[in-house]
């Protein structure tokens, strides 16, 4: 039994939760300021989650709904475990030497599948519609995301993130070393964050918040927790791959915050796509940049 490992894991999860929550609050605040409102305090999300956990009753439509949020949080924390948080971090190094990019790409959909099953069992039409939209959109943004990552993998002959980080310590950030892949990855990342115009999954005014519409109380709380952790994990992954990781926590926060603000601000000023529009969007310019990046990688290695 490796206690330091368990301690590290716990602290990592807590950090991720906190940071994710604060980022959510900040995004709400920023939205409010742009809409010329005062907006909630940035710790508002903590209060929401706390309230949800302090609900005294809960309902579920069966085992799959009961397990759905578990599935989600398992997947999000697992994703976090295999992403190196800090470059030199003996402390935050959890299991990240036993996972690589391809593994992560599959790990990230694990939670979505579980959530989808949970939402499916509620029997609420809105949930099913949301799930169908979400999965379709996932196929959309996976293509440029894949192109970007594969371009990097084949160019630098590494599929493990730690390897990529070490490499970036020598040759600089990959967003400059292979810019087209970075553009494609960034555009795909915006879709991955599910902010408007890509918020077709939770679309509150059409779908009554989509998949979670039958979840309340502790289930919703667990989902929000895992959502915040997952956000942080995705941000760290992006930073590790393209921005050369971070050597200390502040740098990490800075980079992740910058990356996080891009989808947020892009989302505030843009309306919502329809599903096929969003898919076609991802198969348009982002894929084009991805292909360019791939050809660039090909040119570089040969």
């Amino acid at each position: 039994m490796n206690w330091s490992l368990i301690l590290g894991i716990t602290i990592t999860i807590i950090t991720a939760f906190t940071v994710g929550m604060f980022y959510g609050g900040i995004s709400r605040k920023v939205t409010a300021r742009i809409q010329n409102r005062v907006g909630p305090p940035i710790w508002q999300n903590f209060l929401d989650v706390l309230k949800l956990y302090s609900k005294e009753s809960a309902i579920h439509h069966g085992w799959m709904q009961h397990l759905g949020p578990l599935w989600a949080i398992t997947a999000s924390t697992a994703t976090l475990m295999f992403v190196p948080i800090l470059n030199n971090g003996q402390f935050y190094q959890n299991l990240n030497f036993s996972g690589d990019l391809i593994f992560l790409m599959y790990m990230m959909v694990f939670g979505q599948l579980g959530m989808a099953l949970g939402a499916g069992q509620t029997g609420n039409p809105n949930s099913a519609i949301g799930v169908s939209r979400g999965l379709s959109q996932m196929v959309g943004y996976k293509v440029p995301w894949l192109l970007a990552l594969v371009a990097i993998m084949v160019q630098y002959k590494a599929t493990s993130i730690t390897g990529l980080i070490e490499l970036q310590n020598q040759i600089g950030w990959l967003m400059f070393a292979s810019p087209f892949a970075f553009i494609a990855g960034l555009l795909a990342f915006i879709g991955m964050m599910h902010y408007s115009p890509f918020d077709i999954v939770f679309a509150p005014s059409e779908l009554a918040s989509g998949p979670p519409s039958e979840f309340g109380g502790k289930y919703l709380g667990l989902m929000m927790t895992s959502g915040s952790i997952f956000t942080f994990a995705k941000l760290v992954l992006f930073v590790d791959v393209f921005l050369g990781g971070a050597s200390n926590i502040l740098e990490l926060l800075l980079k992740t915050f910058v990356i996080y603000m891009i989808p947020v601000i892009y989302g505030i000023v843009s309306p919502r796509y329809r599903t096929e529009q969003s898919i076609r969007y991802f198969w348009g310019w982002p894929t084009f940049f991805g292909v360019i990046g791939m050809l660039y990688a090909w040119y570089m290695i040969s």
Partner: protein
Amino acid sequence: MIEKKDSLAIGEYIKNFARKHSLFVLAYGTGCGAIEIPPTMTSRYDAERFGIRGAATPRQADVLLITGYLATKTLKRVIRVYEQMQDPKYVIGFGSCTINGGMYWDSYNTINSLDKYIPVDVFINGCMPRPEAVISGFVKLQEYIQEGKADGWRKYQNNIEEYRENQKRIIKNWRMPDYNL
């Protein structure tokens, strides 16, 4: 049944603090009063300052906001929505109609006082109340929550027979399974 908790316990305090500062509102826009909700939520009066935000479905909501008169038909839906909400849950009666029927006090198909059918925690009077009044009502609700006095949902559970009686008196074709007990 549920014993009265000691509201000074620290855990209870924190819980109430959280509940108080994050109110997910399910605005049930029945009557004309619904028109006052958008200005309350949007930039002019920005209710989100107080952690008040709209909820999409009753499963996620904390506050049921009944804006205006309730026809007998509508009452059935309101009861169902209320029972689908998770405890603790609060009800705000909005406008005179929910208090005494208002200008519909002698109408054949509206109910006069909402309190007889589902427990109301805060009434906001006026026909119709302006957003300032709404917000002050919410603030009042928050105070009650903090003090632990906003326990309409407990009352509903304890005196369910009485409430059912009243409800069935109004709703003739009672075809509702018994929820949330």
